[in-house]
């Protein structure tokens, strides 16, 4: 366990703003050089789906924000393995490491936050 804060996103994109606002929190931590990781869990794995186009609903395409995560200093991205399979996201994504969000996983982090 290090000092890293794990930000969990378990809501699908575009239907509400919770994931965006969680991402803003993660980016803020990174901007202040605090270690932060992201976990996409449950319906939140749909953030990682290829081929998104937010313009269709007049929102920003969230996967683009995500692409910038590493640039912003968010070092680790994780995806819920079972949820990826459930939503047909079987390919390994370049962005995220597949994990099982069990107690052992959560304990790798100093703090766990979800909105």
């Amino acid at each position: 366990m290090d000092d890293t804060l794990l930000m969990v996103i378990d809501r699908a994109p575009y239907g509400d703003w919770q994931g965006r606002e969680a991402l803003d929190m993660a980016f803020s931590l990174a901007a202040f050089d605090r270690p932060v990781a992201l976990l996409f869990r449950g319906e939140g794995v749909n953030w990682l789906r290829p081929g998104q186009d937010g313009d269709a609903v007049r929102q920003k395409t969230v996967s683009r924000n995500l692409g910038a995560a590493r640039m912003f200093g968010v070092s680790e991205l994780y995806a819920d393995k079972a949820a990826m399979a459930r939503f047909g996201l079987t390919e390994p994504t370049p962005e995220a490491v597949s994990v099982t969000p069990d107690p052992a996983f959560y304990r790798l982090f100093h703090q766990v936050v979800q909105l």
Partner: protein
Amino acid sequence: MSHQTDSMLTLHILNKAPGHPRFTACLVGMAEGDLLLLTENAVLALADDNVRLPASTRALAADCKARGIGGDVPLVDYRGMVQLTDRFSRIISW
């Protein structure tokens, strides 16, 4: 196109993600001949292994496109949604 309405049949407009309790309640509440229109986060059901949708399902094109969802149900645009609300006099938003 005629303006006949199917007076007992119902258009179910469902905007909840598949894990929401109301998603299941909607499917259970559908009668034969009813039509299901998936909007907003409900279109994720098209990619969800856990969900079995009725044959008479439509999905809003814009919401599918935003989320990168393909799927094999007929897509409707907002005008198509208007047409559906014209055709059905009974409409339930879930």
